[in-house]
């Protein structure tokens, strides 16, 4: 019986390396400041009766990509009911903190190597979860606008709530955070024919650690359609920033549901073939470059971030 803890989501088949203090950023248990408590209470009161949203997991969960300083990590991996996170729509994916100064997803370092990609551009973030990373990108790189899409209604609501809070703190006349919005929906369309009426509307599309979930839920056809849709939604000169998960990580998720298991067994389109497909006439990207690989201490999260450019 596989281990279902979220700890294993990082695709690490070796035991975690012994980390010398200071060498690698450590995880920190969330401290309960009064602010946290208010928001935490607020979250608990929120109605989560929407069927799209996964049930709330138990309070503690390991933080995966955050660089946080301070207290030693909590080494006990808690059992997480991620049986219900069919879309990778984890609660607390970015940790329990609601976007304070400590938030730093390591991938931002890779993205920061080419800030001009984002400055004054119109961005789409597919699978934005609770929006933490999206918001950070919009702010840090001074995007013209950012739309975040997620299949989980509860997470989208969280993201919108975060934006509302930021608006109260925002300087009058500032672009951010008024230029950020979150939308609930499935990026995969009900039918391929709808691609006929898709239009260019974004300069950059981010698809970070989402392909596995599209693949497991909507199969090869769904993922290919999503790639085609991304291309169609980009303006000439637009870029797709893709961080695909490797296929080894799919296997442990096939037990999430019967249909996911069936989907998994039907997959023939492998992540190694993604670039070839994206560059083929069926999609139409003109070139690919490797942007970078995040310096994550856990191998499983060291996923290459690729840029595909549309002519």
């Amino acid at each position, binding site marked *: 019986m596989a281990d279902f803890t979220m700890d294993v989501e990082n695709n690490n088949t070796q035991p975690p390396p012994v980390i010398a203090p200071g060498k690698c950023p450590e995880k920190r248990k969330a401290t309960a400041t009064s602010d946290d408590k208010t928001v935490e209470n607020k979250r608990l009161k929120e109605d989560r009766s929407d069927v799209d949203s996964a049930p709330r997991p138990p309070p503690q969960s390991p933080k995966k990509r955050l660089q946080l300083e301070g207290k030693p990590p909590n080494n006990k991996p808690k059992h997480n009911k991620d049986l219900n996170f069919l879309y990778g729509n984890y609660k607390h994916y970015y940790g329990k903190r609601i976007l304070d100064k400590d938030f730093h997803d390591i991938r931002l370092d890779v993205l920061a190597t080419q800030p001009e990609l984002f400055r004054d551009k119109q961005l789409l973030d597919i699978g934005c979860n609770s929006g933490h990373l999206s918001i950070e990108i919009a702010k840090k790189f001074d995007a013209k606008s950012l*739309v975040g899409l997620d299949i989980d209604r509860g997470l989208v609501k969280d993201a919108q709530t975060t934006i509302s809070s930021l608006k109260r703190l925002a300087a009058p006349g500032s672009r951010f955070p008024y230029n950020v919005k979150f*939308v609930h*929906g499935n990026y995969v*369309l009900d039918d391929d024919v*709808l691609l006929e*009426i898709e239009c260019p509307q974004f300069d950059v599309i981010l698809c970070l650690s989402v392909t596995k979930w599209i693949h497991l839920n909507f199969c090869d056809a769904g993922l290919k359609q999503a790639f085609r849709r991304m291309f169609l939604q980009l303006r000439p000169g637009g870029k797709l920033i893709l961080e695909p998960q490797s296929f080894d990580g799919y296997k442990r998720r096939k037990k999430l549901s019967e249909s996911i298991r069936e989907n998994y067994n039907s997959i023939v389109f492998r992540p190694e073939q993604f670039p070839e497909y994206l560059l083929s006439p069926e999609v139409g990207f003109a070139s690919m470059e490797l942007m970078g690989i995040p310096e994550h201490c856990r191998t499983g999260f060291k996923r290459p971030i690729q840029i595909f450019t549309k002519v």
Partner: protein
Amino acid sequence: MVNNQSKYAMHPRNILRVPPDYTKLAIKHKDFRQVCELELTGKVSINFRNEKTLRELTKMLLKEYFELNVDFAPGSLVPTLALRLNYILWLEDMLEPLNLENVRGIDIGCGSSCIYSLLGAKKNGWNMLALESKQQNIVYARQNVKRNNLEDRIEVYAQPDKSSIFKSYFESEKLEKEFHFCLCNPPFFDSNSPNPFGGNTRNPQRRPAPNNVRTGSAEELTCEGGEVQFVQRIIEESRLNQQRVLIFTSMLGVKANVPKILDYLKERQINNVTTTEFHQGHTTRWAVAWSYQKAPLSPGTQCN
């Protein structure tokens, strides 16, 4: 009549009462898809303020729900299906207690689509006489009837002039056929007015712009004296043909014109009268029905 339904909903049997799933319909119908916009959420949305969109929408709905293939003359009025259905359903309700076989109706000014006649014939098996004066519309109407194999049910009659309603037809038609109803969408606007499409809202700031775009030629939309005079002409001609048509009806586009027509009927001692409202979305229209015979037009109406 008070019932559970919302006061401003469509007729209970109107298939558009519950908005259709346009995304599913866009997947199914290619021409309609082309005029839809795809949202990020994967749903399609429709810009009603575009003439081509309205045309493709009505075409698609007629195809989808009635298997009717309809073409509209360029520049001619694009009918909205919800309203046309509400009118047909109201007529059905009035005819139902009469237990008629072989219902015959007159469509006054059928337009290029001939939509009322097509719907009446296809949906209810009514026999329709479609009157039309504009040449281009006559051509298209006849093509529409033929294309849908309803030539045995619908006759499109070319009105020689616009001044008469029934006159030319009744004079030419030897058989003295009787009809059970007539229906009409009159030209709403007054061609004599300095600003025919101006409207007379008392509060232009508060009244929002319509959600759709106006379609149709001047000939279809305006006439001398607008809808009031047009309907008055129908009333005048009805007096000369009291036994030829059981129930006379017409739509009115402006609420303020309804009492004018009711007064006009009252002055001529036409007492078997009823009115109704058609609700579809943000738009409301009105209709008047009158009869010279003992046809019960609605519960509580005095029969003449």
